[in-house]
C-alpha cells in the first residue's frame, strides 16, 4: 500500500522508449558483431568493452507522482546528453511494486544485453539480490541507490554491481535543525515529525536532529511522532501537537518536505503561520518557493540530491561499461559510499540556487567527485 499504480506518463514514455530502443537494438547487434572478441572480458570481471555509442542507459525509480524522481530523471537525462546517448535512455517506473521492477529490469536486460547500464533505486532491500543476479547473468552494469541489504556490498558480490550510493541523513537532519534553532533565537521548544520509523534515512535524519539538540541546550524537544513521510498525516499530527502544547511550540522539525508542508497547513489553520518556524529535508520546489518567499516561517530545507543520484549513478555505470574504470580494482569507498553533503537551502541562498530539476550544473568529468565517505556493511 505504499506508492501506487500505473503512471500513464511513464507508460507512454516507456512505450516511446521501447520503440526507439528497438531501433537501437538492431544497431547494437550490428555494432557488437564487429568486435566479438570483447565479450569474454566482461565475464571475467574486468572493465567492460562496450562501444561508448552503443551503451543503453536505464534509470529505474518509483514514479513521477513524486517530484524527487522528476529530479532523478532530469539528472539521468543530463548525463545521457553529455555522452550523446539521449536516444539510448529509458526511464522505468516501478510504481512501488518490487516484482514489477524486477520484471522490467529483466526484460530490458534481455533486450539490450551486456552493454546495458542500470541505475536502480530498489523498491525494497529484499529485491536487490535478484537484480544483481539478473545483471550479472547478462554481464551488464549496475549502480544502486538508497537501499541495500546489510552485509551485501558491491565489493564482495560482483564486479558488475559497480557501485552503491546513498545519502547520509545525519548532516541533513543536523544542519536543517541548526537553521531552525537559529531562526528561533537559539531557544524554545520544538516538536518533530519523523519518517517511517524503521527506515534508515528517517533514523539518520532524526539522529542529526538529536546531535543539534545537544549543541543547543536551550532548545527542548517536546515530542517526536511519526507521520510516515505523509503530508496529510503530518497535518493531523501537527494539529494535535498544537492542541496539546498550544503556544509552547516555537518550531517544527520535519524529516521530509511533504510532512513540513503538512505542518505549514496546520499552522495556517491555527493562525500560527510565521510565528512557529518549520524546517525539513529534501529540497522539493514547493518548499524552496516557501523558503524563498520567507513569509510562512519555512526556515530551511536541504538541496535536492535527485539529479546528482540520477546523473552520477549512470556516469559511474557507464565508465565501467566502456572500460574506463575496472570496478574490481576500485577502492572500497568507490563501491559503496555516501554522497557529498549538498548543503541546505535558506532564504539567503534560495533565490540563487538552480531548481531541483535543473541538472545543467552537473559536471561529469570526475565521476568520483560526489564521494564523501564509505558505507560500511
Amino acid at each position, binding site marked *: *500500500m505504499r506508492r*501506487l*499504480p*500505473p*503512471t*500513464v*506518463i511513464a507508460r507512454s514514455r516507456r512505450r516511446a522508449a521501447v520503440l526507439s530502443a528497438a531501433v537501437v537494438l538492431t544497431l547494437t547487434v550490428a555494432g557488437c558483431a564487429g568486435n566479438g572478441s570483447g565479450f569474454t572480458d566482461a565475464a571475467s570481471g574486468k572493465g567492460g568493452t562496450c562501444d561508448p555509442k552503443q551503451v543503453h542507459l536505464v534509470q529505474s525509480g518509483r*514514479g*513521477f*507522482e513524486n*517530484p524527487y524522481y*522528476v529530479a532523478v530523471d532530469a539528472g539521468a537525462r543530463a548525463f545521457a546528453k553529455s555522452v550523446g546517448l539521449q536516444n539510448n535512455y529509458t526511464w522505468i517506473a516501478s510504481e512501488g511494486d518490487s516484482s514489477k521492477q524486477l520484471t522490467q529490469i529483466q526484460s530490458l536486460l534481455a533486450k539490450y544485453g551486456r552493454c546495458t547500464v542500470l541505475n536502480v533505486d530498489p523498491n525494497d532491500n529484499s529485491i536487490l539480490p535478484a537484480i544483481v543476479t539478473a545483471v550479472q547473468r547478462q554481464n551488464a552494469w549496475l549502480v544502486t541507490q538508497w537501499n541495500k541489504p546489510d552485509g551485501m556490498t558491491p565489493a564482495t558480490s560482483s564486479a558488475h554491481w559497480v557501485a552503491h550510493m546513498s545519502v547520509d541523513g545525519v548532516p541533513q537532519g543536523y544542519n536543517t535543525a541548526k537553521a531552525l534553532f537559529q531562526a528561533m533565537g537559539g531557544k524554545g521548544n520544538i516538536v518533530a515529525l*519523523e519518517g517511517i*520509523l524503521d527506515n534508515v534515512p528517517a533514523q539518520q535524519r532524526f539522529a542529526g536532529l538529536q546531535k543539534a539538540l545537544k549543541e543547543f541546550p536551550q532548545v527542548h524537544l517536546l*515530542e*517526536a*511522532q*511519526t507521520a510516515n513521510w*505523509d*503530508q*496529510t*498525516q503530518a*497535518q*493531523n*499530527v501537527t*494539529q*494535535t*501537537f*498544537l*492542541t*496539546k502544547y*498550544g503556544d509552547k511550540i516555537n518550531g517544527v522539525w520535519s524529516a521530509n518536505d*511533504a510532512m513540513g*508542508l*503538512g505542518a505549514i*497547513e496546520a499552522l*495556517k*489553520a491555527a493562525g500560527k503561520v510565521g510565528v512557529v518556524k518549520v524546517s525539513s529535508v529534501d529540497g522539493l*520546489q*514547493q518548499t524552496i*518557493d516557501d523558503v524563498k518567499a520567507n513569509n510562512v516561517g519555512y526556515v530551511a530545507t536541504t538541496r535536492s540530491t535527485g539529479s546528482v543520484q540520477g546523473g552520477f549513478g549512470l556516469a559511474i555505470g557507464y565508465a565501467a561499461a566502456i572500460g574506463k574504470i575496472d570496478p574490481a580494482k576500485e577502492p572500497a569507498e568507490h563501491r559503496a559510499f555516501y554522497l557529498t553533503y549538498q548543503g541546505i537551502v535558506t532564504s539567503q541562498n534560495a533565490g540563487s540556487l538552480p531548481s531541483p*530539476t535543473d541538472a545543467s550544473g552537473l559536471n561529469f568529468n570526475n565521476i568520483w567527485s560526489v564521494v564523501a565517505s564509505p558505507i560500511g556493511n
Partner: protein
Amino acid sequence: MAPDLLSQEHEVGNAAGASEDRSRGGLWARVSRIERVPIPALAALALIVIVFGLANSTFLTLANMQALADQSAIPVVLAVGMTFVILMGSIDLSVEGVVAATSMVSALLVINDRTHHHLGLWAVLISVAVGAGIGAVAGLSVTRLRIPSFLVTIGTWQIGIGIAQVLFGGQPPVVRDRELLSWALKTWLGMPRLAFVALAVVLLGLWVQHMTRFGRYAYVIGGGEDIARLSGIKVARFRTLAFIVAGACSGLAGVMATSRSGQGAVANGNGYLFLTIAGVVIGGTLLTGGRGGVLHSVVGVLIMVSITNGMILVGISPYVQQSVQGAIVVLAVTATLWRLRERLRVVK
C-alpha cells in the same frame, strides 16, 4: 433470513425504533438491537472519549474538538458515500484514486500557479461530476458486465491515480484561490468550515437513507438481492446509483483535500481507504450488506480519528501506536458486533 429482513424493514420504516416484540433479554440487549441509532458504536466512542478525556485534559478542550472536526471532515464525507455501496453488499475500493484525480482536477480549475483557470464554485461541481463519472464506470461494470465490485473498483482506483498522474506532471499545482482555501482556514461558530461541509453531506445522506426510495431499497437489496428482484425492484439501477453517489462523495472529498492541503497532489488520497472502510465497519454497517447506515459510519469514523488523536495527546510512543490502534479497532469491532455474535450463538 426472511423474518430478519422483515423486522429490519419494519424498523427502518418506523420512526419508533425498537419494536415491542423484541423484549427478550436485558435492557442492554434490547437497546443494542435498536438499529436506527448505532448504540454499540456510540458506546465505544463514549468509552474512548472518557478514557482519553481522563488521561489527558486537553482531549476535551474546544481546540481539540476543532482539530477532531477538521480531521474527520474528509473521511466522514467518504464514509457517507461508501455506506450506500456497502449497504447493498458491494464495496468501493476506489476512494483514494478518485480523491487523487479530483484533487488534481479541482486544484487546476481554481486559481493556481500552473493554469489560468478560475472557475471557482464550478470547479467544485466539475470535480464532483468527475467523481460521479468514475463511480458510474464502476457501477455499470458491476451491474451490466457483472464483474465483482471488489475487482472493478481496484480498476477505477488505478484509473483515478492515472488521471491524477497525467495532470500532476511532476510539480503540484499550488492553490491561490482564497475562497477555496478559506474552507480549510476559516471557521464558523468556532468550527472549521470543512466540518460544516461534512455536516451538510451527513444530513443529506440521512435524508436520502430515510426519505428516498433509493435509501430504503439499499437495505432491501443488501438484505437479499433475490427477494428485492422478485419484488420488482430494479436492483441494477439502484446499485449503479450507489456507486455514482459514492463517486460523487469521493469527488467532493477530493476538493476538500485540495483545500486542506493547499495543493493538488496524487498523495492527497493516501490513507483514506483504510480509514473509510474501518469507520464504516466499526460503526456497525455489515460488509455483507443490509444493516447499518449513514449515522453508523459517521460514528465509526469519529472513533478512528479520536483514537489517532488521543494516542498522541496521551503520549503513547510512536513505536507502539500502530499496535495500540489495531487493538482498539479489534475491541471496538467486537463491541459493535457483540449482538451479532449472540445471535449466531442462538442460531447455532
